[in-house]
């Protein structure tokens, strides 16, 4: 085997109330592509931030080659030859390709005029090396997403990067563009660059990676395993398989209840085809799938944020048209707890009370349209208490609270709104065990009180402990339903079969058409 280019030895990172990473060891070898897998909240992004100098490990060591390194800031990592191409673009849109690539060079006299012609000359060989026919003088904002990504790789290489991290590089690329990217990565591998490839698309990972590490709940679930020893189902097992007991929950009998929300042959502009499902009052229906399966997009469509191209949505048996989240909440009494609580679920700069009360401002305003503070308090405080939100006061900024407490507040605001249908998207990602248990208990109580709950989660144990029925989605299509027997082993087996089966079919179809 080739030499190790970068290594983490038993690194751990703790945040208040959460162990984000524990004793994680990975080895990246020169001339090799290492895959990093894991579901949301497994600790992938924390690990990347440790390797790129954004965070410092609380325990453990980092080695670049044989030498131990300490990164205090991102620039230290760059200086040590570690580069990263992030999911979000990190280029200055109005600057030229060449100038973007030159940024970050430390040996620049701040007052000496820039020689753009020279920058272009310097950029050219790196662009050529990646096989890019881009004019280095062109503005980055005129490039396609795929080209920007290539420019970021070129930039990293021009900074003498020997260890390159790629964080979901294909998330917004077309298949052809992805293939072009893989060609480049293969060439870099031949040149001895060590790469880490983070992706949720297992086919890609199998195609281009040599070794793989899997994170699950912040610990190594698989450490530096050669890819050729693994099949897709092994990867899925490593990502979601768990030996833990599922708490026994009382069975609900919801079949007698009326259907609160039904989707009939729904097709959407996101790419869903003929999705049919129903959720009864007092029932928790789970929607399982790997990331990118189209679950969040389905929720957004129900909330009026996506366009229907076919089929219909029925609420209490009557067809409805939902045009916006406001419409969904006030007219149809459907609530949505977003997976992305920081950007979509909460206003971090506002107080606990303001966040929890936001959904009921309309209804708690008195006849003159005035908002009475005591009115809002009366309606929200019981829910905040019930969720055991830990906050010094109701006026504390939500941004200052822990992830678990933030999620409780995001949930409380929908409870206060008194919705009949609640869609919950990844409710416990990144929060501590105790808060998780509270949230689970709460969802059960809600269902017992007659709320119809559609639960989206990638956490299979959570799904099995909460859901009455589990629907499996893959590639924007519902693949089938699994009755919940609470037997984890059997459940995970049949869920995996649904997903695995679908991709096999797809492959066969592709092979047939090719």
């Amino acid at each position, binding site marked *: 085997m080739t030499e190790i280019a970068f290594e983490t030895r038993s690194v751990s990172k703790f945040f208040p109330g959460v162990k984000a990473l524990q004793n994680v060891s990975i080895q990246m070898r020169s001339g090799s592509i290492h895959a990093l897998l894991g579901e949301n909240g497994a600790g992938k992004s924390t690990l990347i931030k440790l390797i790129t100098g954004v965070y410092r490990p609380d325990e453990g060591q980092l080695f670049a080659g044989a030498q131990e390194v300490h990164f205090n800031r991102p620039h230290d990592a760059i200086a040590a030859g570690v580069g990263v191409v992030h999911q979000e673009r*990190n280029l200055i849109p109005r600057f030229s390709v060449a100038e973007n690539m030159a940024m970050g060079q*430390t040996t620049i006299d701040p007052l000496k005029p820039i020689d753009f012609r020279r920058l272009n000359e310097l950029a050219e060989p790196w662009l050529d090396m990646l096989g890019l026919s881009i004019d280095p003088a062109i503005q980055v904002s005129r490039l396609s997403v795929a080209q920007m990504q290539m420019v970021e790789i070129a930039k990293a290489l021009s900074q003498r990067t020997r260890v390159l991290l790629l964080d979901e590089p294909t998330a917004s690329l077309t298949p052809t563009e992805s293939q072009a990217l893989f060609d480049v990565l293969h060439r870099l591998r031949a040149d001895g660059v060590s790469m880490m490839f983070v992706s949720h698309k297992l086919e890609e990972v199998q195609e281009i990676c040599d070794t793989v590490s899997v994170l699950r709940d912040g610990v190594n679930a698989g450490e530096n395993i050669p890819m050729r020893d693994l099949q897709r189902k092994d990867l899925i097992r490593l990502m979601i398989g768990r030996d833990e007991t599922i708490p026994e929950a009382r069975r609900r009998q919801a079949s007698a209840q009326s259907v609160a929300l039904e989707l009939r042959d729904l097709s959407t502009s996101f790419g869903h085809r003929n999705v049919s499902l129903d959720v009864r009052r007092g029932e928790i229906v789970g929607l399982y799938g790997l990331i990118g399966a189209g679950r969040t997009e389905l929720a957004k469509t129900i909330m009026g944020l996506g366009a229907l191209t076919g089929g219909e949505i029925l609420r209490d048996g009557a067809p409805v048209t939902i045009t916006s989240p406001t419409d969904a909440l006030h007219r149809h009494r459907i609530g949505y707890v977003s997976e992305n609580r920081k950007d979509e679920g909460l206003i971090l700069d506002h107080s606990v009370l303001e966040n929890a009360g936001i959904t009921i401002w309309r209804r708690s305003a008195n006849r003159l349209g005035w908002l009475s503070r005591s009115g809002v308090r009366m309606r929200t405080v019981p829910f905040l208490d019930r969720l055991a939100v830990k906050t010094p006061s109701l006026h504390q900024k939500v941004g200052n609270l822990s992830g678990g407490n933030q999620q409780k507040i995001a949930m409380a605001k929908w409870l206060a709104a008194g919705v009949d249908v609640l869609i919950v998207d990844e409710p416990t990602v990144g929060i501590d065990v105790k808060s998780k248990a509270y949230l689970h208990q709460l969802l059960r109580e809600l269902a017992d009180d007659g709320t119809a709950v559609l639960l989206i989660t990638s956490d299979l144990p959570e799904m099995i402990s909460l859901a009455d029925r589990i629907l499996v989605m893959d590639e924007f299509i519902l693949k089938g339903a699994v009755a919940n027997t609470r037997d984890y082993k059997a459940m995970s087996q049949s869920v995996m079969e649904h997903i695995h089966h679908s991709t096999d079919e797809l492959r066969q179809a592709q092979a047939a058409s090719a």
Partner: protein
Amino acid sequence: MTRNLFQSDWATPMLVALTIGLLISLFNPAFLATFNLQVLLEAVSINVLIALSQMVIIAIGQMNLSVGALGGLAAVVFAGLMEVFGLPPALAGALALGVGLAGGLFNGVLIGMTGISAFVITLATLSIFKGLNLAITQAQPFYEIPDAVKSFGNETLFGPFPIILVPAAVIVVLMVVFFNRIPVGRWLLAVGGNAHSAELSGISITRTVIVAHCLSGVLAASAGILLVARLQLGQPTIGDDWLIMSFAAPIIGGAILSGGHVSTVATVFGVLIVAQITQALVLFHIDPFFVQVVLGLMILAAVGANQLRDLRLQRAPQE
């Protein structure tokens, strides 16, 4: 690389400015009279500096509400030093620029160090600078301005070209070079364009913010000094009406308020457009108070045009 003239940032503002000039002179040939052009160019010389002092802050994606208060403070310091202490104009001018630099440094350090929004900080310093101004002047103008300064502010080189056009033009050229060629100038645009990325590339955001505000202060002070020379007195009210103008010209010139994109040349044409319209209202005997209304409408029109352009850029097929 040959760039099409009409693709450049300033082509549209230039065409608009020329069209407006042409229209006005068609309806009223007096517009082209030497004296009229001189008044126009005097206004442009000073307003360009005001607009640039805001533009450097727009470049980093912030705003500076204190440009008028700081420029006014520098103006009364300039006039006061000459009247009360009898300092020679050059020394008084240098010290007044120093006041602008110090005020800008104060803004920049507060914003850069605390991370509090520039809007709030400069709102507070606006009040501080204006208060200092009134404390120095007791709200009375300084009348004793040396003749040399008066003639500097009111005589022409030749034809309609005022002397004060020279410092303004020099500063414009320096700013063009600064934003296009000098690393520090590029850092301003980088921080405004994508602060996170700039920081990852090793650019200090704090330092860049401080530099921008210092520059803004010096530009505001230079506008104040030129205005004292032109008005021939140190008015304590100098700067009170700069704010809208300071934003209007860069915006008309296509600057993006969230930062990262400004054009010095387009801003100059923005100033020219505003000055021409202001003068047209006078030539056509329209109530001068209407200028404010027109200025507001022009800002709205410019923002709307920018929005349209961005939408079209987004929809355009990418190469």
